[in-house]
């Protein structure tokens, strides 16, 4: 039951640092810790209603009171002009002339790639596999660009439903406070916004950081797993706890831009939409080559891939870092999602894709490129490789799961999907035959393949440059090269290590 006493504090006044009737801040704020000893789970609520039963066992929970630490100021960077500066930094579009030049160059390159593709098709029968692959891949990629050109972000219709922002995390003592602050300072009306953070059995000071944040934002709901249960459990419990009509999942290392929550739910005006992905950039892009490269890569996978998919309401993956769901849809599939076994093992990775697929089966999934956020990308190669392996495993698994119902979707995304299903499997073979077998047989690499791949890379790298003005656009080539030489093989690696459930990034 909700605690009327604690609801007197105006969260808007709190966030703004002062209210209309400026009452002196109470010396100490009491929160309620509701705990289920059987499930070793506790909820810390201050200004929000106390949950009455354990979300797991439905048993009554013991409620104890605690004193929140004194509220500290919101981190400076979260407020003020910083955000605008960051936006300018991220999206400093080049000059007009340059834009046109880049556009023409990109179009020309794309046309060249198409020409090569078509002329290579004339000698199709000399290497049917490579040619079929490059044909499909070519059509696929080019169609991505074409479809992306038709992409429009869902219009802002003034839709303002209740929203629960969920942040599951573990051992994030450094970032969690900031993340929460970002969420609270994002600008969505507090009365329609609930924030649930899940501490998945952290061994550091994460819980303390959360409680500190609760002191700043008393409506914050903290779910505390005393032992590590896994990301999906965190998400599930948070979902069960949530009271908003829509859920916005935000990673603990993801920072929302102002207006992001409002923007990301606009698409839900359409009742067939079950989920919407927001746009995420790399927060630490300037850190090193790897993050620069990932920045380009993120941009491409959002601005081209997801945008293209979104045209037919078929975004294949709602990334965990920043996506919105219709809560009822999640509730509907929650049990199944939680209990999905893959090859006899509970899938504890790639939760975002899995969840997306469950919803995608019956609903449409969109992408909103105007709902902005930034996230922290892996900063060293080891992490990156592990992350990629995890993604790949998830990709391989989910792509087949979705394959079962994908044919019921519109032919264009359906066929794209199946192409995406096959291509990573075939790709290494094609790369071998184009780069290794062909040079041995005829003395030269299959030129159309190499030229095609490079042209495409150049096109999306330039696209990146055109839209962001970031100087490290060329790292797209690094991505292509590393992908061609190494990461393409991870599909096989993923297939072989499918049973591994280790959370790669951390």
């Amino acid at each position, binding site marked *: *039951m*909700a605690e*009327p006493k604690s*609801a007197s504090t105006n*969260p808007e006044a709190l966030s703004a640092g002062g209210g209309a009737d400026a009452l002196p801040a109470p010396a100490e704020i009491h929160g309620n810790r509701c705990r289920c000893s059987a499930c070793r789970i506790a909820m810390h609520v201050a200004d*929000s*209603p106390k*949950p*009455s*039963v354990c979300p797991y066992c*439905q048993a009554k929970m013991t409620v104890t009171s605690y004193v929140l630490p004194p509220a500290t100021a919101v981190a400076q960077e979260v407020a003020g002009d910083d955000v605008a500066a960051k936006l300018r930094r991220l999206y400093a579009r080049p000059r007009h002339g340059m834009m046109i030049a880049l556009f023409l160059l990109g179009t020309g390159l794309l046309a060249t790639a198409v020409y090569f593709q078509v002329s290579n098709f*004339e*000698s*199709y*029968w*000399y290497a049917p596999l490579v040619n079929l692959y490059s044909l499909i891949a070519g059509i696929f990629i080019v169609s991505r660009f074409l479809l992306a050109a038709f992409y429009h972000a869902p219009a802002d219709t003034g839709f303002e439903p*209740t929203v629960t922002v969920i942040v599951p995390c573990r051992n994030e003592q450094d970032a969690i406070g900031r993340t929460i602050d970002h969420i609270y300072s994002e600008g969505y009306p*507090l*009365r*329609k916004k*609930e924030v649930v953070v899940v501490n998945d059995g952290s061994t550091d000071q994460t819980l303390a950081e959360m409680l500190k944040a609760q002191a700043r934002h008393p*409506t914050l709901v903290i779910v505390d797993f005393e032992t590590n249960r896994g990301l999906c459990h965190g998400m599930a419990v948070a979902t069960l706890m949530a*009271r908003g009509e829509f859920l916005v999942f935000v990673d603990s290392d993801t920072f929302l831009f102002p207006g992001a929550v409002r923007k990301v739910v606009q698409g839900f005006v359409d*009742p*067939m939409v079950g989920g919407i992905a927001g746009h995420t950039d790399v927060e630490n892009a300037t850190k090193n080559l790897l993050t620069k490269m990932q920045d380009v890569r993120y941009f491409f996978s959002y601005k081209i891939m997801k945008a293209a998919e979104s045209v037919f*309401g078929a975004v294949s993956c709602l990334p965990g870092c920043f996506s919105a769901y219709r809560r*009822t*849809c999640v*509730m*509907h599939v929650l*049990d199944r999602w939680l209990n999905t076994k893959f090859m006899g093992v509970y899938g504890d990775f790639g939760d975002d894709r899995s969840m997306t697929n469950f919803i995608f089966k*019956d*609903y*449409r999934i969109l992408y909103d490129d105007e709902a902005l956020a930034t996230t922290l990308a892996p900063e060293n190669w080891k992490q990156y490789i592990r992350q990629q392996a995890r993604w790949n495993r998830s990709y391989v698994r989910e792509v087949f799961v979705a394959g079962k119902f994908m*044919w*019921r*979707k*519109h*032919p264009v995304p*359906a066929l794209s999907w199946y192409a995406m299903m096959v291509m990573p499997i075939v790709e290494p073979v094609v790369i071998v035959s184009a780069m290794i077998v062909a040079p041995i*047989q*005829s003395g030269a690499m299959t030129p159309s393949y190499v030229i095609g791949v490079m042209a495409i890379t150049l096109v999306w790298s330039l696209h990146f440059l055109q839209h962001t003005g970031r100087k490290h656009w060329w790292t797209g080539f690094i991505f292509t090269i590393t992908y061609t030489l190494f990461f393409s093989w991870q599909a096989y690696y993923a297939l072989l290590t499918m049973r591994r459930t280790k959370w790669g990034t951390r």
Partner: protein
Amino acid sequence: MNIFTAVPPTPRPPVRPGKKDHWMSRPIQALKDQYVQAWLYFLLIVSIVVAWWFPIRVLYQRYRYTPVVSQVQRDAESFVALTYTGISDRTNEVSPAQFDEHLKALHDRGYAPIGLADVQGLLYQGKPLPRRAVLVTFEQARKSSYFETRDILRRRRWKAVMFLWTKPISDEEPSSLRWPYVKDMAYSANWEIGAESDNGFVQVPSDAKGHKGNFMTTPMWIAEGQRYETAAEYERRLSADLKVNFDLIVREIGRKPIAYAFPYGDFGQYDSRAVLTRRLNLDLVGQRYALGFVSGNMALNTRFGDPRRLNRLLVQPGWSGAELVAKLEHTWPIVTGFENVAVLGNETAWITDWGRSAFGTNGILLRSTPATTGAKMWLAGSNLCRDFQTRLRFMPIEGQFGVFLRATPDEESYLYIGLEAGNAWLRQKFPGLEPFTLASARASVRPNEANTLDVFLRGRQCFVRLNGVSIFTEGAELRGPPKPGMLGLNLWDPRPGMARARVMDFHLRNRIDNLAEWNSSLNGEPWLAKWINLNAYRVTQLGPPWMDVTSHGVVPVLAWDGEVVHRLAQVYDMQVTPRVYVHDERGLDLLQPDKVADQVQELRASGMYVNLAELDPAASTRAIPWLKTVTAAFAAKGLSLFVRFPAAMEQPATLSSVMAVIPAAHAVVGGTALPTPTQGNESNRMVTVENVPAPPGDLSLSLYYQITGTAMTNAKPSFELQTELLRQDGHAAFAGGDYAKALELWSQWHQLDPNSDEALMLMGDVCRRNDESEKALRYYTESLAVNPGQIGLAVRRAQLLESMGRKDEAQESLNLYARVFPDNSELALAQADWMNLRGQRPEARALAERVLKSDPENLKARVMLQNLLDAPVARYDNMRQLLAIGSEPVMQYAFGEVILNQELLSFPEASVLMPFIGKTAETSPDLQVRQIYQRLLPRRDIIVEDFADGRISTNWISSGDNLPSREGRYRLRTTRAQQEAFLRLQGSDAMRNGFIEVTLDEARGHFWLYARRGPSSMVRFGFDQSGYLHLQVWRNGSAVQYDSKPWLRPPGAVRLRLELRGDGAIGYINGKAAFVTPLKIPADLGQGWWGAAPYAPQLGMANVIIRRMEAGPLPVRMVLMTGTPAAISGDGAIDAVKNDALNLSVLAPVWFVQNSDGTLPTRIVGDPALVRMFTQYYRLRLLPVIQLFMNSDIPAEWLIRVARENRLDGFILSMSHMPDNEWLDRMRKELEVSPLEVIAMSTDENTGVTSLREISLGYGIMPAREKTWTTRIRTVSGNEGLRIKTRDEETQDGPIVWSVDAAAAPGAATNETVTAAAETQK
């Protein structure tokens, strides 16, 4: 206001078992996100695209890139073909840019692209092509050849053919095409698909040394078997490859390819020995494909080419567009306007195919390369020249020089004139057949000097003149209809690198029409026919004087010999246009044009020749209105008009203006055989004219005249092959004695080719051989109607007529031919024969000798003379000459035929030939020759026929109706046209001693056993219908010895046996001698064949059923009588041999013994009377022995004299050792003046083997086969007497010699017994 506080969370209601959990149910009834319609549209579009993709693309490409054929007339019957090995940027191939340049150059020069269907249409339906048609082809299914050229072809609107080598396609080799592309090509407008073997570009082992050869043209060496594959295996290999290739293409593109390109452009044409290879390749490809292509230096193909081996010019990588076009420009046919083309100087006009040629100011030096044995050069564009004349000045330096006419470059078909020092020959070859010599002659080619060769080809006539002299007498007739081909020069020398010749001058010109006219005074003169015969090479038209037109009217000329003129015109392919000589144009009005036309038609002439030469020009133009009406009247009847204007008007300009008024007429101008080129006369056909000159004073005529009377009228190669096979098979059947089959085969030939005179002639020959005279006559007559130039046939027909008793007709027809061909030797011989039969022997002999004088090598004349000569020496001499001619290698086969056909072996002097026959039969390198001579060898074995399967073995030639008989019997019956049906024992012609025995079941009509049956002589034994038994000897057509008796045929089977041995013939009935003594055979009776024949005077009535037959040679049984002269003369010795007298051949009493001083007694010691009487009675040859102790020279005169004095048949010279050949040859020669039989005999004392050898070959007694016979003398003691085991000894055909000691013989003591015995005998 916080909404969360206002709306508290709803506690979850407890879930009761069995109730639906609404908490978990879908909160919003989802609008189903379905895309059924989208999918339907999508699938629809995909299906449409998939289904229509190929056809629409094909339609689009067909429409869009249809090759442009320039709108020129389609009237050409030739095209050029090019082939590119590959198009790529590699250094040794034609680059795409170059290819583009080639197409541009072709387009700019008006070349039109054609496809395979056009080629097929041309070659099979005669559909004409656009002018300058060019077929572009590619090979080996090379990827680059398609990928690099398709855009060029599309852009240039051109088309090409790709020949598929399918193995690399199946193997997916990177450089090769793939099937989807091939299919694409096949359905596009620019490409067509042909085949080019599946695996034909590999090399197969060609010998044990590990050499390799091309797959299609090399018989494979099989290493495991250490052998070559057999022809059947070879064929299977090739045909399997072709099948795989063909099936693959059909399967993959769904269409049958119609063309094939031989891998490497080679079907075996590069090796003249690869006859089988060529035939196999062409046949197999011909079975599957309409067209076959080779590649090489030749580009041009004409309608007359063999569709299975069309030329393609192999385009070399270095050629620019201009060069390519320049090459092609010279290959086009020089059909029109080659009036006197001096083609020598133009280097590009010649294609050097082999060897080397150097063009210089003084002509071409043609020579072999160090590796080749010759050189060959073709005149580009001569492919369509049909009737033409060439003049060629050349200087042979080393080797044989020759000219190809109407040839295909691979020499599969050609006409070839070969010239070597002293010799010239004309050969013709058809595809797939061996070349045959049409004519050969002695001709003097001057080495290292300029020679002039003129060749005139006109229809089927070929005339060759060397240095102004006609060789091959008056021309040769070609086999088959005129078919165009290339003209080429050839050089050959067996030593590589040696052949060399210089060609100084070469002129080629169209046929020139030349009219011969003569004054009426020449009508009926033999000179006229002779002149026409001599000048037939340049005369194409005869203008016999017909009418003279004067001012008073028309004077018909003394009737010309229409028969002769028409016959000559027919023989030489000339036109007859009777001449109207106009002395005064005013008389012309009296000639009604319609009437004249009718008259011309009545005369069987093709037109009329009006000579206005005598008129002055003004008067001649006044005749033009009349000429106009005449041309109109003539044109209506299909006749032509030839007009000669006065010489003053023969200026080209004047003449053409005059002729323009009478366009249907032809101008005749004065001229000679090879006039200088005339210009500007293209509208009218120009005919030159010449007058037959008056006969020269000296009329010593050359006698030799020959027209090769063989011809085949064939249109297609397969057809030629067909007829040739029928012809050959027929000959084989004929030679094998199967006349019925021969007749059937040749009838088929005749049906196939009704215009073949040869088929008709051969059918006539068969009928004649079968004694079906009426039919034979009919065939002969038909054959002569087809080709009246067959003089030999005309003679045969006359002979046949004569034998049928229609002597007048025979005479008449011979006379006609004698008038047409006054100098013909065959006719002369026929004439001689005629005289001989009418008893004018000396005259006949003189005629034959005259023929031989001018042509000593005339075999026929020699044979004829052999009949006519009387003196033995002369006869031997003549026979030797025959042998000398016949034993020359080139003549051997013909000579063998002459021996067979003329039954030369039946002449007694034929023994001269036997050593040659024996040697040739064994050692000749030519199988055909060996076979024919083997048939002439005397038999050594005995043939027994028991007819177990109702058939007769191939040892017999049967002329009758060979009906199947029941087992164990053979029925021989005459056909409905025969009186006699015979069985002739093969190889019996030279059998001297022998027998034939026949067991008969029943017989209707007469039945005869024959021995030594020749044209006019024979021995026969048999019975007639009236119940008589006969034994007869016939010589020169009359029975000289005969015996007969009434005979009642015993019931059941009868066994008749005729036995010849020594000088007697014995007939046996059921094993018993029919007559008391053997019948005497005159020593000079010739040889001949052995056989049996039923005979009945009524046609088709004779019939016999034979149960068993046996025939074969008998050994020569010889008895030497030794002992004292008295003993030999006594009857004791006779007693010893008396019982076996009928089995003996020779009795040899030792009557002469050389004295110790070396002299010989000239008289017989003792009384020879008894022995002589005995030998005479039993027809034994009496050959007394002359016992020589030293081999002194025994003079032949002595032997002859002693034999004459003592009336002896010959001698046996018993010598210490065999004399040498030189002595024998000399002796033989000296003995030839008399028919004496002399045998040399010597016994080796160590081994006891006795050798016998006939020295004189006169009326020999030994089997005419071996030089020396060996035997062991069997000594018989007098008491025992001779015991001949006939059966046992018959297996041997050599001599068997007994020695009987007369002294020891029983009853040697008393003379009384002998006289008593003699008396009882009487």
